[in-house]
């Protein structure tokens, strides 16, 4: 019963959304559009759950003086400061302290984390691109050709050759055909997997995401 109701809700809503795709009547479309927005609001409302969890975990860490508990103070403190700057006023205004902290702390930190990938992509390539088998040879060859074909120094190497033997041309061809074919295959297979999973969810066969029976 307690599990039955959410499963029934899942089924009915899922079915309605499924039908909406084929029924163009505006009342159906409008209601479906409405329900899509509910999801956005539920997600927004859930943020407090997440922040609550974050506070609890760090609070426990501080109370029990676990390794690095001092850093947890940073997290909680800066969160409180950010909230105090933005909470009562909200909307991002040019030049507000909230905006400054966002632009000068979160933005550079996030983009620096992102840029670490330039280092990691090099170390991953060094370690993983070994000629262990025919397959890894393909991986390696394709990667090297494409890497060469994308930069001026690589283009210099084959500039004298006819167009269809140049590295940029090979790069384009690899990207457009074998690469495309493989990715289409993955996408189509995954699409069927998603659909089977979605169907199982709607029918209530797959329900572990709802958690326990109690």
């Amino acid at each position, binding site marked *: 019963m307690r599990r039955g109701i959410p499963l029934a809700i899942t089924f009915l809503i899922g079915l309605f959304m499924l039908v909406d*795709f*084929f*029924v*163009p*009547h*505006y009342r159906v*479309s409008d209601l479906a559009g409405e329900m899509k927005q509910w999801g956005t609001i*539920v*997600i927004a409302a*859930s*943020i407090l*759950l*997440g*922040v609550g*969890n*974050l506070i*609890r*975990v760090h609070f426990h860490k501080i109370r029990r003086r676990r*390794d*690095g508990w001092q850093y947890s103070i940073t997290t909680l403190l800066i969160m409180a400061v950010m909230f105090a700057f933005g909470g009562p006023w909200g909307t991002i205004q040019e030049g507000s302290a909230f905006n400054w902290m966002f632009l000068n702390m979160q933005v550079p*930190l*996030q*983009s620096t*984390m*992102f840029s*670490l*990938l330039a280092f*990691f*992509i090099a*170390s*991953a*390539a060094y*370690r*993983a*691109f070994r000629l262990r088998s025919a397959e890894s040879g393909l*991986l390696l060859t394709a990667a090297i050709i494409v890497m060469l074909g994308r930069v001026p120094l690589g283009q210099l190497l084959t500039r004298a050759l006819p167009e269809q033997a140049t590295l940029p041309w090979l790069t384009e061809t690899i990207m457009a055909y074998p690469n495309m074919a493989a*990715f289409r295959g*993955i*996408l*189509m*297979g*995954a699409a*069927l*997997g*998603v*659909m*089977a*999973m*979605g*169907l*199982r*969810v709607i029918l209530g*066969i*797959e329900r*572990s*995401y*709802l*958690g*326990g*029976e109690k």
Partner: protein
Amino acid sequence: MKLCLSLVVLLLLVSAAAPAADDAETVDPLMSDVEGAVQAPVDSIPPAPPSDLAARDHIENTDAGDKIALSWSLSPDDGAGAGDVIGYLVLRHPSPDAPGDTVAVVGAGSGRCLDEAVEPGTAYYYTVASLDGANASEPVLAGPVAGRTNLWQPARTSVFVLMIVFFALVMIFTRLAERGAALFIRRIPGLNAIEEAVGRATEMGRPVLYVPGIGEIDNIMTIASLTILSHVAKITAKYETPLIVPTARAVVMSAAEEVVKEAYAEAGRPDAYNPDNIRYLSDAQFAFAAAVNGIMLREKPAANLYMGAFWAESLLLAETGFEAGAIQVAGTAMVSQLPFFVTACDFTLMGEELYAASAYLSREPKLMGSLKGSDWMKMVTIILMGAGVILNLMGATGIVNWFQTQ
């Protein structure tokens, strides 16, 4: 089965040799606007009228029944003949004899118009006359036609048919499986590796890290990940190995809590469940990645499992995990991140393997049935592809048009 495949392969190859259908792109005559074409020679002879005027209820994806689509064949003087047609005057009439309201003036070379302001359910008549600089042709008439709010989108019928086929296949095999038909499922090395990885973490007395991706819970990859998490949690509960689950979405965090708690209860170790190990870190992608990296280096999990939807953070996590010396198993259907997981992890579940995991791990007949069903759907897809290639070669583009949806 084998026969089926061979047939398709053969047909695909034969088709390469057949004479070609003319697939050159037809170039639409450039839409010249009315203003620009005024320079056409002006005479006193009215141009020839357009023909084959058809007016139909226009069906769109949010249909309020307030649009009617018109189409006609161009006047013989449009672009050819006297060549002086500059456009078409489209009028809407309440009855064939009543005077009409102007709907639009359509530029020469175009035989289409959409009236977007009709009263739903009211019958109208339409006339279209061709114009040159000075005169208008005899109007041609069509109607009556009324805008309706439709209950079916015909442009999506092909989707519907394939959906029905797919559902039917899944249902049939699920039913068969429930009745006890033995279903085979091929080995998926990545999934076998999960248990090994957890085992090794237990031996070393170090925790297991399970990252369910940074997708929201509406992402089916996240749902698939939660089902795998349930399986992993049962093993860690059995061995009493700590299981750390960092999440980037609050709802996923709360679902993961339920899943893990339930799994520990089922394994008979509800006390071993530590709520502090299911953590919400940050909605911000790289803040999340930074924090997970921190967990890897400081809490030293011996097994890192990445299952779900990942974006650019994939390699940040996998490289740090490698450096920390953990066994890593990844699974995602994000095509753009697969290359990185494949190169940096010990095992990777690619694309559909992630969705097949719950069936593979649980061996539950219902799930196995749906897996079999989607395999057959793949077969249908391959056959359709072959059929499309061949029919297309024979000049029958019907099936290709059928694939064009809205």
